[in-house]
């Protein structure tokens, strides 16, 4: 017989540390049906018994007010499809903060399943001079109370023993002292739920008076001193800025050698496939479709791993909550919340880890809004596009002083445009579609502690696996579709079945469905100052923005252009400068056209991976559709105005 155990507890109580210590790597990770709440199940064996451990989302109460809390309530009462009702509940309680943690214990006692209280962080509590009389506490609660120091595995065996014994209990009885508190006539003018909460705390205060004792503390604890610096109005802001700057630059720079390594491996795989598979349609499918598509996905892996490493460390030591605290006021102004900050900042490196980091926002409305605007932050994939167009078409003249050059100003404006538009979009959405009662900001600032290695490692592993598994398959499919549209129908060349020269590749693309479609949409892109070839490149860059350079290269008969190669880029620049409108000698690329392309790419949603991740994280294909539609519309409008105004001013 399998024993099913639910792990319940407040956030920041060391619940994840306990989970890793008992069950190790989870056997199942996914989402609960219909909601975006993470489901985590693990398994372990003890004295010949198999015990299944369900890690419930961290919650302060069983009065469900959020999807997370609703999931906890549903699981505990057996209302979750495809999941057994737990045989036993372990409530993880933080010993440094007993009275607030006992609130959830008091609610768990009423569920009707045996309850075990696991007191975590006992070592920290003792060093703070807090002493808990466990025998007394156990008598007051009517359930076992086990002392745990999870990172050192103290108390794990006792907990497992107690779990096995719990199956012999007939059922949990609500302590008499609690029921008498709850039965007291409530104030007539108070809602029942509020009166209930007050009554429970009345009971808790009575218990803690008996159970808790304090030894005299000489001075402010280390945690308090750290906290007074971290949340200080000036010092806190400085530390915060430095921390964010170093995280931001490491997702940018630390990841880049790893990303190069990944792309080296992908190139190697492509080269190997080319040598093994005979020339032809199959080789093109494998090399240009499958390997290019999968390679385009796994290239993001280093950034995701690094970002989640930082997020897990910051969360583990309690700084994530303080970052939200420090930034809240600024983001509330545009309808977001302090917790949106990390996801938005990460999106400057790449929207995918940014959107995944939005998991730390438990409020659904704030989370959705953050996910919708995160792709507007200019990610690193836009940088090569900006750099190429800036260096090719923006005159290198001084602006004001000699050391500020116009291309740099244009580059910075592209980043600013993204931030500005994101702020406007968030502002408008939060007052229209997402309008509702103001979302409360009631956030615990957990005491400073060292992050647990096992928890951090698990967080990184989980993010990497879920990204590869869920996005990999879909992105692969999208890449193959785009490859097929760009490869069929195939023109017949005399030399052989495969287009050999750059001219032939360009010709093949022109005759493909993609090329034909681009000529059809020329009227749509003409107001932006684009010819059909730029339109084609923009459409073909749907899988990823940086693809646009390669496509421009192909379409202007250059062959593949690696944006990282100085020489190739130089060639491309010369080619683009020489390009003329079909049948005339009017130049295609002018400054307004270059600016219009840049603004388009700053605001558009040409990134299949991002859209797939939005779908996965929101649990619905409606939101990626919304993102794509609104961003493409904004991109077109932005590009239109830049081109028209630029042309009118005679740039």
């Amino acid at each position: 017989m399998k024993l099913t155990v639910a792990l319940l507890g407040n956030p920041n109580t060391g619940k994840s540390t306990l989970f890793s210590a008992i069950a190790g790597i989870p056997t199942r990770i996914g989402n609960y049906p219909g909601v975006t709440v993470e489901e985590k199940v693990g398994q372990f064996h003890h004295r010949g018994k198999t015990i299944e451990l369900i890690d419930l989302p961290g919650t302060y109460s069983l009065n469900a007010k959020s999807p997370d809390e609703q999931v906890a309530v549903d699981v505990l009462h057996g209302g979750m499809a495809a999941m057994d009702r737990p045989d036993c509940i372990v409530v993880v309680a933080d010993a440094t903060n007993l009275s607030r943690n006992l609130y959830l214990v008091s609610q768990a006692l009423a569920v009707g399943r045996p309850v075990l209280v696991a007191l975590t962080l006992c070592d920290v509590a003792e060093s703070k001079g807090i002493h808990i009389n466990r025998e007394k506490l156990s008598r007051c609660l009517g359930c076992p109370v086990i002392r745990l120091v999870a990172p050192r595995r103290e108390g794990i065996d006792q907990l497992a023993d107690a779990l096995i014994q719990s199956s012999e209990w007939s059922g949990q009885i609500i302590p008499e002292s609690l029921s008498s508190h709850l039965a007291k006539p409530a104030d007539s003018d108070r809602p029942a739920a509020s009166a209930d909460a007050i009554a429970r705390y009345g009971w808790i205060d009575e218990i803690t008076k008996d159970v808790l004792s304090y030894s005299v503390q000489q001075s402010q604890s280390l945690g308090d001193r750290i906290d007074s610096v971290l949340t200080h109005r000036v010092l806190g802001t400085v530390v915060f800025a430095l921390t964010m700057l170093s995280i931001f630059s490491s997702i940018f720079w630390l990841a880049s050698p790893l990303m190069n390594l990944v792309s080296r491996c992908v190139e190697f795989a492509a080269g190997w496939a080319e040598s093994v598979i005979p020339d032809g349609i199959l080789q093109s499918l494998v090399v240009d479709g499958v390997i290019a598509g999968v390679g385009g996905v796994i290239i993001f892996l280093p950034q995701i791993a690094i970002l989640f490493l930082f997020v897990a460390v910051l969360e583990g030591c309690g700084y994530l909550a303080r970052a939200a605290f420090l930034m809240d006021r600024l983001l509330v102004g545009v309808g977001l919340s302090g917790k949106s900050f990390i996801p938005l900042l990460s999106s400057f490196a790449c929207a995918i880890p940014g959107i995944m980091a939005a998991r730390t926002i438990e409020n659904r409305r704030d989370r959705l809004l953050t996910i919708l605007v995160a792709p507007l932050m200019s990610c690193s994939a836009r940088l090569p596009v900006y750099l190429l167009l800036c260096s090719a078409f923006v005159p290198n003249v001084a602006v004001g002083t000699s050391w500020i050059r116009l291309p740099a100003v244009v580059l910075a404006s592209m980043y600013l445009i993204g931030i500005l538009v994101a702020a406007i979009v968030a502002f408008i959405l939060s007052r229209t579609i997402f309008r509702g009662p103001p979302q409360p900001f009631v956030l615990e600032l957990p005491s400073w502690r060292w992050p647990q290695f096992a928890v951090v490692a698990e967080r990184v592993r989980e993010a990497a696996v879920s990204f590869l598994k869920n996005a990999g398959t879909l992105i692969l499919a999208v890449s193959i579709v785009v490859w097929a549209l760009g490869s069929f129908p195939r023109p017949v060349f005399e030399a052989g079945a495969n287009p050999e020269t750059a001219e032939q590749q360009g010709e093949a693309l022109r005759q493909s469905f993609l090329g034909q479609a681009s000529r059809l949409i020329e009227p749509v892109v003409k107001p932006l100052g684009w010819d059909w070839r730029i339109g084609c490149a923009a459409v073909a860059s749907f899988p990823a923005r940086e693809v646009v350079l390669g496509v421009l290269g192909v379409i202007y008969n250059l062959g593949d252009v690696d944006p990282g190669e100085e020489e190739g880029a130089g060639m491309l620049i010369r080619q683009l400068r020489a390009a003329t409108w079909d049948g005339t000698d009017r130049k295609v690329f002018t400054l307004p056209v270059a600016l219009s392309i840049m603004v388009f790419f700053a605001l558009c949603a040409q990134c299949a991976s991002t859209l797939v991740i939005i779908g996965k994280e929101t649990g619905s294909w409606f939101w990626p559709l919304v993102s794509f539609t609104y961003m493409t519309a904004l991109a077109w409008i932005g590009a239109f105005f830049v081109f028209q105004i630029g042309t009118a001013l005679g740039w």
Partner: protein
Amino acid sequence: MRSLATVNIGSTTHVVDISGEDSTSLRLLEMGLTPGVEVTVVGTAPLGDPIELELRGYRLSIRRNEAARVVVAT
């Protein structure tokens, strides 16, 4: 009636009541801001909002909006 939003940084006071009957008020109670509990305003964020509280041995941050619902002893 004095609200927690008007309490000076560094001052300690007692909660008298939480006004309002919606889920935000319930959340404040559930986080331990119940009548009679001692609460200290520890500090504020750089832009003056939210504020940082200490109660029941832990740190909690709430916006001034929410703090205005917390009636404290004068």
